[in-house]
């Protein structure tokens, strides 16, 4: 079985640009969460979606948005990129259990 798939794996963008990150959950998992992990820090919660509805939002500016599609895949969008948005963006999917399965992340570098 495929795990959580994130794309792209690495990305370099310029300040002010827009980025879209994608996540495919484990088959059958209806919940997808997004986290931002700055180097040397723990992950910070950005969004959770369940059954295509937003179920939670972390303390991130409105430049960050997300959505979940009917097949439960998800996109994270970030507008007007800042240098401080450089981080590893993690997606986690969850089925019936309490623990999530994480993808390998997308490493975003803003220059």
């Amino acid at each position, binding site marked *: 079985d495929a795990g*959580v798939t994130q794309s792209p794996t690495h990305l370099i963008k310029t300040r002010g640009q827009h980025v879209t990150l994608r996540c495919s959950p484990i088959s059958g998992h209806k*919940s997808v*969460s997004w*986290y931002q992990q700055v180097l*040397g*820090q*723990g*992950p*910070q*919660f950005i969004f*959770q979606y*369940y*059954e295509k509805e937003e*179920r*939670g939002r*972390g303390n991130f500016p409105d430049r960050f948005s997300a959505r979940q599609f009917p097949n439960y895949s998800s996109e994270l969008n970030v507008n007007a990129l800042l240098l401080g948005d450089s981080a*590893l963006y*993690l997606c*986690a999917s*969850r089925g019936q259990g*309490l*623990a*999530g*399965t*994480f*993808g*390998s*992340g997308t*490493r975003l570098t803003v220059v």
Partner: protein
Amino acid sequence: SQKIEQNSEALNIQEGKTATLTCNYTNYSPAYLQWYRQDPGRGPVFLLLIRENEKEKRKERLKVTFDTTLKQSLFHITASQPADSATYLCALDEQKAGNNRKLIWGLGTSLAVNP
């Protein structure tokens, strides 16, 4: 203020010894506490989950304890191996039920097991 603190210093131990990692929290009421392993450039990998009404959980060489009075969890790796070298993260979940889940993470502790 709310805080989750893990051993700030990297932990270096000899192969075969027991590694003990600490997670302390302040001003949270976790329903669940989870431990993850993270290798450089990779996503966290789930190891163990313990509920607020549980004192101890074991899985193979891993053991986690949870003391809600002390607001502390300890994570033990017995008979440690060089392959156990990684960063270990604790994460809290305050939701007791439902599908709204949000993990609050510590900074992680780097563990190095020397052969």
